[in-house]
């Protein structure tokens, strides 16, 4: 058998590990600093109508086989009171994006090494840069200004505490001045808001007494408890049945109007995105390849990957003989090519994708093809307006 290309000798592994430890130790030290001056992490929003702005964010994992660039220079915005859907296959960096925003990456190996994530905190344009924010400040923001709904309602609730206590905890933590009775009434209000009819009963229950859909409702209640301006829903319905999924999506849709917050919806189901989202961001191998309004993406998909993704999903009522499948697989995340990541699987490759002499052939820039629609593909190089190339952090410089 031929020597595998991914094979790494012990000596090399040791070398990589040593180097990783150096980098992560320094980054950790910086994060753990005490008495960080506010000027380090306070910034201004570019546009005050956005809740969050991602600007060239890079989140890397320092593993023993090399640096995995899970999120590599992504930029997009979440406008106020809107839903942004992030779509992509597993391993494309959807979840890492949301975890970077919450500063919940598995440290020390996972680190956000570059870029800015600006979170609008008061609506006057004052923002904080999550990437530079120390953990102590982060604790006041998580669950308060933004909160997260996780994929598995079965495992994200603590089995040994009653539902009421778990919702109370969030409110108590962020509002220490509230009395016990106030907290309880707020909790009951939240449980009612998410459509739990028997709120007094559920308050006293343990998570195992509830079904999957009810547990997800409780998770949503916890997320909403402090009226955050942003809710991150990381595959909120993947573990649920179709009928329960419809209930939960309906609930989320209604809540958005009631509590006036934005939703960042992470999913791999195009159907869910089409129904829920106002804007869609399509990710592939750690980069944003296409973004725009839902109508832009669904009626006029431009990137070959988006087109392939739409064609490969069977749709009820549309009969096809054979489903389209995207040939090949995602490139190795440790060793990404220097050209378009999708080139080897692409059916639409053009001259510019390969032509190194003419100054092309690198990773394609973001190209604006309409006011709202941006795509990273050389096919639109001449038509659209070039916005700029992704600017990843060089690992050697860290």
């Amino acid at each position, binding site marked *: *058998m031929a020597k595998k290309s991914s094979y790494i000798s012990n000596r090399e592994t040791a070398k990589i590990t040593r180097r990783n430890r150096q980098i992560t130790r320094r980054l950790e030290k910086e994060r753990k600093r005490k008495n960080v001056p506010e000027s380090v992490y306070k910034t201004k929003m570019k546009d005050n109508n956005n809740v969050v702005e991602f600007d060239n964010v890079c989140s890397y994992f320092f593993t023993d086989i090399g640096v995995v660039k899970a999120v590599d220079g992504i930029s997009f915005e979440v406008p106020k009171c809107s839903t942004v859907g992030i779509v992509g*296959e*597993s391993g494309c960096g959807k979840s890492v994006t949301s975890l970077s925003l919450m500063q919940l990456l598995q440290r020390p190996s996972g680190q956000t090494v570059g870029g800015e994530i600006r979170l609008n905190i008061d609506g006057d344009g004052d923002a904080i840069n999550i990437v530079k924010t120390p953990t102590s400040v982060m604790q006041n923001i998580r669950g308060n200004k933004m909160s997260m709904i996780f994929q598995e309602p079965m495992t994200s609730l603590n089995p040994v505490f009653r539902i009421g206590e778990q919702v109370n905890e969030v409110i108590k933590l962020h509002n220490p001045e509230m009395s016990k009775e106030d907290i309880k009434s707020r909790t009951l209000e939240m449980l009612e808001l998410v459509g739990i009819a028997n709120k007094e009963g559920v308050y006293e229950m343990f998570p195992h007494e509830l*079904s*999957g*859909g*009810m547990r997800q409702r409780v998770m949503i209640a916890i997320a909403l408890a402090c009226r955050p301006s942003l809710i991150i829903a990381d595959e909120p319905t993947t573990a649920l*049945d*179709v*009928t*329960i*999924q*419809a*209930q939960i*999506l*309906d609930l989320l849709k209604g809540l958005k109007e009631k509590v006036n917050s934005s939703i960042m919806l992470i999913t*791999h*189901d*195009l*159907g*869910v*995105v*089409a*129904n829920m989202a106002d804007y869609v961001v399509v990710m592939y191998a750690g980069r944003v390849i296409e973004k725009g309004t*839902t*109508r832009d993406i*669904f*009626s006029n998909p431009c990137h070959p990957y988006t087109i*392939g*993704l*739409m064609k*490969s*999903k*069977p*749709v*009820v*009522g549309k009969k*096809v003989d*054979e*489903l*389209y*499948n*995207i040939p090949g*697989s995602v490139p190795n995340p440790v060793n990404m090519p220097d050209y378009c990541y999708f080139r080897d699987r692409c059916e639409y490759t053009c001259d510019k994708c390969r032509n190194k002499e003419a100054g092309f052939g690198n990773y394609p820039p973001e190209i604006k093809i309409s006011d709202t629609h941006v795509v990273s593909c050389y096919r639109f190089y001449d038509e659209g307006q070039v916005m700029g190339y992704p600017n990843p952090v060089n690992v050697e410089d860290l």
Partner: protein
Amino acid sequence: MANENTNINTNADTETLSEDVLVVRDLKKYFPTAKNFFGKPLGFVKAVDGVSFTIKRGTTMGLVGESGCGKSTTGRTLLRLQEKTSGEVLFNGIDIFELKKEELRKLRPKIQIVFQDPFSSLSPRIPVGEIIGEAVREHGIVPPEEYDDYITRIMKACGLQEYHKDRYPHEFSGGQRQRICIARALALNPEFIVCDEPVSALDVSIQAQIINLLKELQEQFGLTYLFISHDLSVVEHISDTVGVMYLGNMVEYAETGELYANPLHPYTKALFSAIPIPDPDAQMNRIILEGSIPSPANPPSGCKFHTRCSECMEMCKYCQPEYREITPGHFTACHLFNTPEMNAKFEAESKAAADKEKADEKDKVGR
């Protein structure tokens, strides 16, 4: 690929066999919940409670429903991976549950299963060639000298390369692992494969590859599938007939086109309306079901769906609807489609039951 593999299927006498590969009649599977001191069960979870269907040779039957409705239990019980409670399963006219151990062993290669999770259904310590080939050798499917060639051929048919033989499952991605699982089932030259949610754990683009592969293999080898899934769009794509299950019962069964165009049972309607359509302009007339699926340990009386049904009538609460053919080939179990005579009968019955319940209550209060 196609010509090379035509001789794998040695069922030369398929024409002489009947058209129905699998006939399931009133299959029941109860799991005991608690046992008393002497080991006598106190209660049962009625996972499968009287399911009947027939699968024709070379076709695919889809089985859909929410989790916990007994889809997978049906699939496993009809392969006799667990013993039934009652009913019968005829495979090519032979009752699977009547067979002795040795006879069943001989039949096993003909009935195979592909499991949901390709990550836990492959042994991490055995190389892929051996995973696929182990049962082939045990059952003596091919003479020993042809063994290597045979495995290579099977692997190629499933889109795997020959050099994958010496690799271990952890070196493969989810889609490729599912290919290995399919190759393992296919290597035994089966007639009937139960696909228990084979694509649920996979990404959309990989799903398409596996579904195409399954369809291709079906044409090549004349396989018959029972395709269990909760993804209605996938089921529509791959199946010829579809059965919808709810709480251990089959509530509707028809040909795919007929069922999707004209669903009769309220549950089927709700299920179809809940599918998210990837089109932002699509008009959604969602029927959103209230609550969640009741516990199968303590199912509601009468029609099991009446607690969530929008068209619930008085008789639904007391009388179980009859599972019958409404139009040719379209079966459903719902009181909405009763004939007048049946209506009269059920109404009388439900009235009697309601009266009895009231009397019981009075009795209790009186005491």
